[in-house]
């Protein structure tokens, strides 16, 4: 669909870490998940970067977007619930590193 393609780096099941960074501008990686480690649940596809779209630029090349699964008791120090409870979040590839 979009002309130039960014290589898809991560596979389903792979452990990834969300960058611990706090940049300015429009960001769709929630504050609470930065620095945390999760597993790739699926590749959603590649989409124009919303951080750039927000600045009236075209957001191309499209970036790989994943759903990443995190164990709740690893995200929250005081989590009260089941040990297998998870939160699943869509995160763009440029926010992820190999864990």
């Amino acid at each position, binding site marked *: 669909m979009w002309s130039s393609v960014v290589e898809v780096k991560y596979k389903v099941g792979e452990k990834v870490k969300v960058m611990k960074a706090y940049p300015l501008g429009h960001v769709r990686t929630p504050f609470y*998940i930065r620095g945390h480690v999760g597993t790739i649940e699926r590749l959603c596809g590649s989409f124009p970067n919303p951080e750039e779209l*927000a600045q*009236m630029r075209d957001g191309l090349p499209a970036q790989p977007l994943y759903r990443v699964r995190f164990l709740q008791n690893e995200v929250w120090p005081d989590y009260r619930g089941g040990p297998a409870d998870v939160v699943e979040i869509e995160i763009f590839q440029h926010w992820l590193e190999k864990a």
Partner: protein
Amino acid sequence: MIERGHHDMGGLPAGKVEPTEHDYAEWERRVDAMSMLMGAQGVTVDERRKNIEMLPPEAYDRMSYYERWVVSLAQALIQRGILTTAELARKMSDVEQRG
């Protein structure tokens, strides 16, 4: 103070969820409709989200959902040069005087 956007509230302490609903007023629905129509002309939801995120915290908290969205749409139109501040001022003044 600035590393975390005021809108980026996942995980922050908050009160009981009041299951309130309201029948949306016509003006509110029209905000949605105009946003969609202008979206088809390239005014992205990302720009509008960014504008909402840049609202001062008190304004963000005190404005209702559609109040935030109509303001963010207006800001986006000004940012793109589709409307100017002067045009907005003139028209707002005219409409108000008409009653």
